[in-house]
């Protein structure tokens, strides 16, 4: 089994009653075959982004990239990663600059960034379906 150093304390700490804490990513990596380089490298990049804790949007995008490469394999291990992501990452949207941000949980079954963005903006749509020009979506790491 591959072992990796634990993610640094800078990673947002989440309550981990059972397997959906930061160590989830290490466990997920440990179950992958390093010879499957595309997937392994993508998972390593996800871990690095999570550890850095600075670019939540890139982290979400990488999560979905890993999901696509998995193609349904390692289902339980990646389910735990998705649970971690749901706790560690948040989607926020506002209809215009100066308006308060509305926060949403990252969907457990999310697979595409554009779908998440569209869902987050949908509450601000007019009766004709138009989104305000100043509407904005951002991704953040959950604070504790």
């Amino acid at each position, binding site marked *: 089994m591959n072992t990796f150093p634990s993610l640094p304390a800078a990673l947002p700490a989440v*309550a981990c*009653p*059972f*397997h*959906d804490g930061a160590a989830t990513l290490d466990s997920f990596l440990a179950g992958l075959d390093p010879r499957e380089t595309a997937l392994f490298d993508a998972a390593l990049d996800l871990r690095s982004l999570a550890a850095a804790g600075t670019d939540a949007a890139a982290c979400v995008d990488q999560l979905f990239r890993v999901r696509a490469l998995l193609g349904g394999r390692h*289902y*339980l291990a990646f*389910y*735990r990663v998705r*649970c971690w992501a749901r706790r560690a990452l948040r989607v926020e949207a506002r209809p215009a600059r100066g308006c308060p941000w509305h926060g949403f949980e990252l969907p*457990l*079954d999310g697979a595409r960034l554009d779908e998440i963005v569209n869902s987050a903006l949908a509450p601000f749509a007019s009766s004709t379906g138009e989104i305000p020009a100043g509407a904005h979506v951002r991704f953040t790491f959950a604070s504790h």
Partner: protein
Amino acid sequence: MKSTVTTPASTRVDSPVVKALNLLLADSYALMANTHYAHWNVEGPGFFVLHKAFESHYEDLFKAIDEIAERVRALDAYAIGGLRNFANESGIDELTSPLAAKDYVASLVVAHEKTLQDAVALRDAAGAANDLETQDLAIGRIQWHQKTVWMLKSYLK
């Protein structure tokens, strides 16, 4: 003759054994609720198999909950109760919206593992208190959860 009855330490409401029993009770109740939810709402090609399996699981959990609560009473302590209380005590996330079939299975694996962890803690607490009867109950629950986890994980492979 005046008699005084002192409650043995092992049966006090704050005793490690009673606390561990009540935690297992909360876990089991929360897990039963999630399993029942999955039984109702699972969809897809695996529907019949999963619908039936989840039914079997929540029926077993229903019996186990009674057994655990009555063990608390047999120790002359009170069993905890109330849906909100069970949810808060167990820490198992409630299933509240529909999931893909495999996600139901995965979420139940995680909840079973948490319950298993607490059943192990109960086994050890009961052993330390020389309460072999409670330990026996805990061991039975551990065996059932281990078997159920094996079966659920197999579905995901």
